[in-house]
């Protein structure tokens, strides 16, 4: 799905750089198609790439291993969750091929545009979009329940809550955030479906409804969702940094506490998406304060990650490079969020490319850099073989260059006043002066996409040809490295017993610079 999302990005990015010229490999992009592409790019990347990979993918594989469990608490619920997700994917793909095409009302599906098919000309594409997203959320909900139950009930002997790896903490906090925020959105989605099909009028003013109600429901979910994606990514990074700097994670408990605080705060920031939406302007100030305050716990975590490097002994495997790259890039995404969080500045930057640049600097490191870090790090555990480090470094270099080239110019594009989702910037004379930045960004995207070829080849070729890996090739402490590579049906050969915290590296007086968290019983 990431390839589909990337291809859609290529189509509309090309159109932005060279308006109304046919796109090589596709042809002419029209305004309706343009809206469809941006809508589906956002939908796919957030709901079908970031969330399933970070939560379900890494979570399902790592969580039982890291807490020393033989399997998830509800293996059948797990399979049901998987097949529901599969079904949701089918529904979403089908929506591209129904008459009228896929949905084109923006990934935030604001009514009334999304509530009356006549406004976009997309009938079935919209209904299927809602159905697909609802199914996907049900699947994620089942997954989250499974994670929490597994964590609470199946931990190995000695695995106290405050001995769990940060990743396990993060997956659980993310699951809780998802569980509490998704209800309003599923309700909103079905109300919208009722509006679309039965003209019920929840969100239609002519029938007594209110379009802003939907925005509240959507962002009450939508903003915590950002942290649902961010937390597992921070968890992945927290597992990798200590191993490759041979140091304990700096401030293990405070990181957990600050994550919990951020989790609570994430529920009271949603209206910063609505500063200029027509809500009472007096509402803006409290939401601005909570939004800017949420930078504090995340600043704490990031500083703790950076402090982990301090007086370490850092080696640069590809996994570590991606982890470091994630932190370096995410910092820019984090600080630019303050601009959007400030009500007065938001009047100008809202719905411009500044926002696009900001959330790509947040979500790209989260979704892709952290995922790649995780894949390079755990690939030996998954398949018993290493990925090629050489091609990994080529992949890293191209990804980082391409990403920055694609998104750094967009901050300037936004400051120049370029509003989002317009199909042809050349129609606006005041935007002519930034046209070259669109070209630059598109070249960046092409480098970024091309840069993924070495990764894909590396991933599949290494399955057979990669260097063989022993059980614990990185000399890491957490329990998954006690299990054989790849882990067998019941994960561990004998049940592990946990005797210490997860990040005991370079302990003074110890014989070696790592002490595994568990011992075989």
């Amino acid at each position, binding site marked *: 799905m990431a390839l589909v999302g990337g291809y859609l990005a290529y189509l509309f990015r090309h159109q932005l750089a060279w308006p109304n010229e046919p796109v090589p490999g596709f042809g002419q992009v029209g305004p309706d198609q343009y809206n469809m592409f941006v809508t589906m790019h956002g939908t796919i990347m957030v709901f079908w790439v970031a969330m399933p990979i970070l939560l379900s993918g890494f979570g399902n594989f790592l969580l039982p291993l890291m807490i020393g469990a033989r399997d998830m608490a509800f293996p059948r619920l797990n399979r049901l969750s998987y097949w529901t997700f599969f079904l949701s994917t089918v529904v979403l793909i089908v929506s591209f091929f129904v008459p009228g095409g896929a949905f084109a009302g923006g990934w935030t599906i604001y009514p009334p545009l999304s509530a009356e098919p006549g406004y976009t000309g997309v009938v079935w594409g919209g209904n299927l979009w809602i159905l697909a997203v609802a199914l996907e959320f049900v699947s994620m909900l089942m997954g989250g329940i499974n994670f929490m139950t597994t964590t609470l009930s199946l931990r190995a002997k000695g695995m106290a809550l405050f001995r769990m790896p940060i990743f396990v903490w993060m997956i659980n906090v993310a699951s809780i955030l998802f569980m509490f925020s998704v209800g309003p959105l599923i309700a909103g989605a079905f109300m919208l479906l009722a509006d679309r099909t039965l003209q019920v009028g929840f969100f239609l003013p002519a029938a007594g409804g209110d379009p802003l109600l939907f925005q509240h429901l959507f962002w009450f979910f939508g903003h915590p969702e950002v942290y649902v994606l961010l937390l597992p990514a921070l968890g992945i990074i927290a597992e990798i940094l200590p191993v490759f700097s041979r140091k304990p994670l700096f401030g293990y408990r405070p990181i957990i506490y600050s994550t919990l605080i951020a989790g609570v705060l994430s529920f009271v920031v949603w209206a910063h998406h609505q500063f200029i939406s027509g809500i009472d302007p007096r509402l803006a100030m409290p939401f601005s304060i909570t939004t800017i305050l949420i930078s504090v716990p995340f600043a704490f975590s990031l500083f703790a990650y950076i402090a982990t490097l301090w007086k370490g002994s850092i080696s640069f495997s590809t996994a570590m490079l991606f982890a470091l790259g994630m932190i370096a890039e995410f910092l820019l995404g984090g600080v630019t969020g303050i601009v959007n969080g400030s009500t007065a500045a938001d009047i100008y930057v809202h719905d411009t490319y500044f926002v696009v640049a900001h959330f790509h600097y947040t979500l790209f490191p989260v979704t892709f850099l952290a995922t790649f870090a995780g894949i390079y790090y755990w690939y030996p555990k998954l398949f018993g073989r290493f990925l090629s480090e050489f091609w990994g470094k080529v992949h890293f270099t191209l990804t980082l260059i391409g990403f920055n080239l694609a998104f750094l110019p967009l901050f300037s594009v936004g400051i120049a006043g370029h509003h989002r*989702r317009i199909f042809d910037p050349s129609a606006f004379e005041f935007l002519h002066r930034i046209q070259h930045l669109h070209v630059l960004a598109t070249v960046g995207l092409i480098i970024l996409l091309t840069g993924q070829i070495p990764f894909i080849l590396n991933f599949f070729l290494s399955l057979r040809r990669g260097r063989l890996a022993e059980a614990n090739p990185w000399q890491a402490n957490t329990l998954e490295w006690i299990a054989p590579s790849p882990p067998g049906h019941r994960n561990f050969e004998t049940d592990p017993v946990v005797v210490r915290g997860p990040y005991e590296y370079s302990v003074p007086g110890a014989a070696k610079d790592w002490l595994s968290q568990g011992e075989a019983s």
Partner: protein
Amino acid sequence: MLDWLPENISTYGGAIDHVIRTIYYIVGAWFVLAEVVFLFFIFKYRRRPGRSATYQPGTSLKALAWILLPVALILGFDLAIEVVQAPVWEEIKQQLPIADYKVRVRGRQFVWDITHPGADGQFDSADDIQAVNQLVVPVNRKIVFELEAADVIHSLWIPHLRLKQDAVPGRTIRGWFEATQTGVFPLACAELCGSGHGMMKGELHVLNQPDFEKWVKEETAALLEVP
């Protein structure tokens, strides 16, 4: 990056730019500082033979002070930003000044319908001037607008005024601006509103008082001529 800001032509635009600049310098300094420390650590503590890592779990308050101090500073800067921006927001969005001139703006797929009150200064009278995509206002006057949407959500976006406000069907949202320069400036829709969203554009004409009065007179005359 901030050099790309379009020229400001409104009384409050300078204050918005000031907020953006203030945030830019504060977070920019933090960003550079964090990256420099980060890169310095990566370079200084790279693996070298004969040197091993130091055990620092960061459990004591003393060790954590290295993080808590900058975090406390960030908290301080956050509040400072809030103090700088709050009055600007209040001036622009929370208070409506006494209007020198009123105008109605209504977004519809994919045009802006603009109603000028005409010579009598009253809406819903015979001399109301209806314009499409043309917002004509006098310079140095407080303009209060009533914003509506006919079908879907639109967003009135006039970059040079630093003005953006969503138009929501079913609501009338009031706002204001005061232009400080005459000229013609772009006006656009900033909220996705369908296939023509990217083409939904208009012009803001800021005229000096005599020109503006002349324009009103001519338009009204043209209106009343029609049998």
